[in-house]
């Protein structure tokens, strides 16, 4: 499908900031990339291929995302680590009324405070992003993790 260079660049930059905001532990900035009526969920390929609706994480609006981030900051305890996302190119699948859909592959590595890295999760995002003037916002992010066997635990978002 035809995508203008400007749109491609804008949405590529949106995804780059998405990944970097998590990797730099700017989760509050990460939340701001979403629309108020967003839908963020983490599912596994095992469930998707069996037609099962189970979620590892599901926020069906931006307030739920804010609640998750707040909870990480003040309430939950998890493994101290650094995240590092490596994203593939965007594959566009459709456009309707200024909302673009595309898929992106990701690898997410985690590194302990002692510097030991491991592959934490690999999979793809199914994204719906809205263009509002010069800005782009995420309406839907569905993380379909090939890595259904979560190493240790899943706290910081994918």
């Amino acid at each position, binding site marked *: 499908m035809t995508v203008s260079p400007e749109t491609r660049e804008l949405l590529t930059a949106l995804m780059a900031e998405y990944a970097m905001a998590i990797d730099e532990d700017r989760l509050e900035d990460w939340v701001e990339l979403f629309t108020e009526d967003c839908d963020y969920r*983490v599912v*596994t390929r*095992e*469930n998707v291929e*069996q037609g*099962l*609706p*189970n*979620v*590892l*994480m*599901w*926020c*069906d*609006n931006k*307030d*739920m995302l*804010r*609640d*998750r981030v*707040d*909870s990480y900051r*003040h*309430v*939950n*305890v*998890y*493994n101290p680590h650094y995240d590092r996302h490596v994203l593939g190119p965007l594959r566009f699948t459709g456009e309707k009324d200024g909302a673009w859909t595309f898929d992106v592959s990701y690898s997410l590595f985690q590194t302990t405070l002692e510097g030991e890295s491991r592959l934490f999760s690999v999979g793809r995002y199914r994204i719906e992003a809205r263009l509002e003037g010069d800005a782009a916002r995420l309406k839907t992010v569905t993380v379909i993790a090939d890595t*259904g*066997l*979560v*190493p*240790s*635990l*899943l*706290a910081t978002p994918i």
Partner: protein
Amino acid sequence: MKPDIAWPRNDYSRVPFWLHHDEDIYALEMERIFRGPAWSYLCLEAEIPNPCDFRTTWVGDTPVIVSRAKDGVIHAFVNRCSHRGAMIVRELRGNAERLVCLYHRWCYSNAGELTGLPFRKGLKGEGGMPEDFDMKAVSPQRLKVANCHGMLFGTFSDRAETIEAYLGEFGIGMVRRFLSRPVRILGYSRQRIAGNWKLYAENLRDTYHASLLHEFFVTYGVDRATQKGGVKMDARHRHNMNHAYAGSDSQEEAKAAYADTAARLDRMQLRDKKLLNYKNEFPDGMNLAAPTFFPNALLIQINNTLGTRQIRPKGPGAHEVFQTLFGYVDDDEAMTRHRLISANLVGPAGFVSMEDGEAIEVIQKATRSSPEGCEVIEMGGRGPVADQAHRVTEAPIRGFWSYWAELMGVEPAGGIR
């Protein structure tokens, strides 16, 4: 082989750390517990509803196929070809009239019997198996299967008690509570924790940690030790149920009990409160119930999230927690959605469960270098193990170890049971 365990005390209030690290202990557990007289949780009946349905699972570290034959009877047998030992089924699940090993196409029925093999009579009078080759005699090892209200258990041992005696009235009642209506499977989650499987079994029986490690419970009032609740065990103290009643404490009681978190109790509020919506759907009114069955099973209810968990040991230093989430067939779309939103609480990313993985891993890391060290398990008292009408206790952990020691044949002199 009889491992030499120097129990410092006969009430299991001290447990040597090395039991979580030793290869020989692990091998013996697989033999005497998982291939011994314990009943292991296999899967839910709802996962194999139709004739010829099958799914794969694990009993300890043994791969197992659970299948439903054409006549509706459920079978379980080792997923290992009689010929050269290949896994017969590699898929997670499926439906097939016969199961065929990929290597030499040996064929098995849904009941796990070897029914045919290529070139058995040779080709043009040459080759083939000996005339007297007995297919039946080499069929894969079968498990005895018990269907408890739709929850399937299996055992390798002829010496095992009946499932009714094993789970006890208490256990059977809990399974019935969770599975009283036809079940709809919502899906699976898996987590690999770098720690010994018994650390997870202990965690499930440790009601002391729940409101301390999982601060989400306290902060948002899902579950606090100040709520009405307690621990209840079977007569042999091998199974346990942690339970609590929604809304049975006051904010003031909680603040007094959790001085460290008190400040947060007023300040922290969920912006979207539907996460903690609870629609009572059980006559007993419990919003939290977590019956755990020796050695590998848990039924879990946190608000309207319902599931089973199966512990899959992966060597002395790791285990997988396999969780099956379910609702009921008569749930409407809104209820299914509500259960899935509530699922944010449980599983590998659960608000009230993610910490367990971390706690177990840091125990495994820190205890390796202390072969002489012991866990200290005295919260809730020493000596005989009994039910308690509160949850400031670790007594069910001692119950677990007493039955573990019995099956392993390593009880100390005068060991409590």
